[in-house]
C-alpha cells in the first residue's frame, strides 16, 4: 500500500510518487487522479503495482497511471510505461493477456426517435449475429494459412475478404495492421485456439452497445466524426480472444528464464521482460503483433455482423440504416513510437495496459480528416452509465506519451459485486431505464454491474482537466449485448 502522504500533489488532477520512494525505482510514478479517485485505489494494490512497474530496465520519463486505474497483475490496469528502443525491455505483462483489447465506434444517420420502436429487435439481432459468451466459436473456420494471413494483415485481410470497407481500415489505429508481425513466433496451441474464434465477442467485460449521442461538447470534432445529438452509434469492445491470451501466456513463461539470462531483477515475476533487441524480445514482438492484428480483424468481422443486424432490422424502416466507422483503438498494446523527451525525439516502446493511445492534432499516424481535431479516443462506460468520445491533445503528446484513460475502471471485486447485486434484478432496473440487455449469464451480468465501476464522468473530468484529452461527445446506452 502506497500512502497518499508519500505522494507529491502537483495540482487537483495530478500526483507523483518520487523515485526516492523505493530504492529499486528507476523513474517516478505520475498519477492522473482526483483525490477521491486516488483514495479509492489506495485501498487496493494499484499504486504498489505502479511502483513495481517503475523498476523495469530502460524506462524513460515516468510511469504514468490513468484515473481509471485499478489493481491488475504485474502492471496496474491504467498503466503506461515507455522503454528506450532498442536496448530497453518489453514486458508481456505490461501489455496484458488480451492483446489489443480495444473499442470500435460506428456512427449512424439513424435518429433514436426514428428507431425507438425497433431497438429491442435490434439488440436481439446483434445478439444473434455476434457470437458471445464463454468458449464461443464463430461462424468462420480459418485454415492455418488463413490464420497466418489474418495475423500478418489484420484489417487488410478483412478488407480483402469482404468484411471491411476502405474507410473502416483507414479509421483504425495503424490502419488495422501492425508491421513486423511474425507468424512463425506463434505457438501451435495459440494457432489452434485462434482458428475458430475470429468474429466472436467472448465473455467478461466485453460487449456490444447501442448508444445515443447524448451531448456534444466539441461540435467541430463531432461533425468530422459524424456524431449528432439524438442519433444512434454502436460500440464494440473486445480483443484477441484465446489467441492473444495464449501468445501472452507462452511468452510470460518463456521470459521467466530470460530475466535470469539477462540478469534482470524484478519485484514481481509477472513483470518478466527481455531486451527489445534480444532474440526473446524480438520473438515476442513478432507474436504480439500477430495477436494485435488478429484483434483488429476480430472487431472488423464483428462490425460486419453488426451491420448485418442493422440491415436486417432497420432496412426499409429508417431512411439510412448504414453504420460508418468513427475509429477503432487499442487499449492493451505495446508499440514502437517516437516521442519528445527532454526536448529530444526518442524511439520508445510504449506499453499501454488499460490505457488508450491519444495522439494530438497534426500527428502523422492519424487519418487526414482527424488531423485538425486529434485522434478519437473511445472511453466506454459501465453498461448503465455514459460512455465518452474524446480526442488526443498537444498536451497528451508532451506529457503522457500520447496516452489517456480507457474506461471507467473497476472499483469493486467480482465476488463482492455478485454478493451485492442480483443479475436478474439489475436486468429489470436497466430495462426500466430504457436499456435493453442480452446477457450470457445473470451472475456474469452482476459482476459487470455499474456499481462495480468508478464514475466514468469523473475519470473523464480528470483527463480533460489535466489536458491529456478533450471532450467531444457523451453517449448514453439504450441496448447492450454482454458476453
Amino acid at each position, binding site marked *: 500500500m502506497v500512502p497518499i502522504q508519500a505522494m507529491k500533489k502537483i495540482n487537483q488532477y495530478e500526483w507523483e510518487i518520487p523515485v526516492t520512494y523505493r530504492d529499486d525505482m528507476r523513474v517516478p510514478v505520475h498519477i492522473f487522479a482526483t483525490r477521491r479517485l486516488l483514495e479509492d485505489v489506495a485501498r487496493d494494490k494499484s499504486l504498489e503495482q505502479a511502483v513495481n512497474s517503475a523498476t523495469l530496465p530502460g524506462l524513460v520519463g515516468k510511469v504514468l497511471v490513468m484515473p481509471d486505474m485499478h489493481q491488475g497483475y504485474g502492471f496496474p490496469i491504467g498503466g503506461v510505461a515507455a522503454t528506450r528502443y532498442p536496448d530497453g525491455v518489453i514486458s508481456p505483462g505490461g501489455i496484458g493477456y*488480451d492483446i489489443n483489447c480495444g473499442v470500435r465506434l460506428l456512427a449512424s444517420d439513424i435518429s433514436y426517435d426514428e428507431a425507438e420502436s425497433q431497438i429491442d429487435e435490434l439488440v436481439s439481432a446483434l445478439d444473434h449475429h455476434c457470437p458471445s459468451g464463454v*468458449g464461443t466459436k464463430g461462424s468462420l473456420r480459418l485454415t492455418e494459412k488463413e490464420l497466418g494471413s489474418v495475423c500478418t494483415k489484420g484489417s487488410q485481410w478483412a478488407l480483402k475478404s469482404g468484411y471491411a470497407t476502405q474507410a473502416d481500415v483507414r479509421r483504425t489505429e495503424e490502419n488495422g495492421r501492425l508491421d513486423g508481425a511474425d507468424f512463425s513466433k506463434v505457438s501451435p496451441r495459440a494457432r489452434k485456439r485462434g482458428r475458430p474464434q475470429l468474429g466472436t465477442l467472448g465473455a*467478461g467485460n466485453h460487449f456490444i452497445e447501442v448508444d445515443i449521442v447524448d451531448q456534444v461538447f466539441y461540435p467541430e470534432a463531432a461533425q468530422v466524426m459524424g456524431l449528432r445529438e439524438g442519433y444512434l452509434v454502436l460500440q464494440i469492445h473486445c480483443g484477441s480472444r484465446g489467441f492473444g491470451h495464449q501468445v501472452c501466456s507462452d511468452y510470460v513463461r518463456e521470459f521467466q528464464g530470460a530475466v535470469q539470462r539477462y540478469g534482470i531483477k524484478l519485484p514481481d515475476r*509477472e513483470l518478466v521482460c527481455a531486451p527489445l533487441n534480444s532474440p526473446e524480445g524480438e520473438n515476442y514482438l513478432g507474436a504480439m503483433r500477430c495477436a494485435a492484428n488478429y484483434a483488429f480483424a476480430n472487431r472488423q468481422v464483428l462490425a460486419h455482423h453488426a451491420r448485418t443486424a442493422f440491415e436486417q432490422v432497420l432496412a426499409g424502416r429508417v431512411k439510412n440504416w448504414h453504420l460508418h466507422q468513427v475509429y477503432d483503438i487499442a487499449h492493451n498494446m505495446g508499440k514502437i513510437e517516437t516521442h519528445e523527451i527532454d526536448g529530444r525525439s526518442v524511439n520508445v516502446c510504449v506499453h499501454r495496459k488499460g490505457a488508450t493511445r491519444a495522439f494530438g492534432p497534426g500527428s502523422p499516424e492519424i487519418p487526414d480528416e482527424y488531423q485538425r481535431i486529434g485522434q478519437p479516443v473511445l472511453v466506454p462506460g459501465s453498461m448503465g452509465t455514459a460512455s465518452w468520445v474524446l480526442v488526443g491533445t498537444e498536451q497528451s503528446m508532451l506529457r503522457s506519451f500520447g496516452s489517456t484513460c480507457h474506461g471507467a475502471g473497476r472499483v469493486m471485486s467480482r465476488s463482492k459485486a455478485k454478493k451485492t447485486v442480483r443479475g436478474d434484478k439489475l436486468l429489470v432496473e436497466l430495462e426500466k431505464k430504457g436499456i435493453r440487455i442480452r446477457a450470457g449469464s445473470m451472475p456474469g451480468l452482476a459482476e459487470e454491474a455499474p456499481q462495480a465501476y468508478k464514475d466514468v464522468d469523473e475519470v473523464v473530468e480528470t483527463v480533460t482537466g489535466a489536458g491529456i484529452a478533450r471532450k467531444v461527445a457523451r453517449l448514453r446506452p439504450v441496448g447492450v449485448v454482454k458476453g
Partner: protein
Amino acid sequence: MEEQARSGYREIEHTADWELEVWGPDMAALVEQAALGMYSLCGVRLKKDSRVTRQFFLFTIEPEFMLVWFLEELLWILEDDKVAFERFNMSVDGNVIQADLVGAEVESLTKEIKAVTYHNLEIKRGVRGLEVRIVFDV
C-alpha cells in the same frame, strides 16, 4: 476428514480479476486444490453419464512453474475438449509431476479464465503446510 481440513482453497477479494488462496500438506495436494479451486471459479458442472481419464507427466524447473503449467494444461483441456477433472491421483517428485486424472465432459461452465498469472506467485511453507496465492486473469 483430516485430509480435507489440511488442504483447501478460498477466494480472495481482487478488484478486477480472481485470486485464490490455496493450501495443502504437500505439493501434490496443493496442485490438486488449486485445480479444484480454478474449476470452482469457472462454475464447471460435469455431465453425470460421462467418464474421462487422462495421464500427465510434467517436468519443470521449479514448483511455481509446475503449478502454473499444470493449471494452464487443465484450462486448455477445458477449452479444447470440454473436459474437467474431479479426482486427482498425483505424485510429485522434485520437479516432476505425474498425475492420473478422472473426470467427465463438461455440462456447463459460467466463466472464462484468460490466463493463470505469475503475479507475486510464491509457494511458501506455513502453518497449513504449503500455501500459495494465485491470480487468474478473467
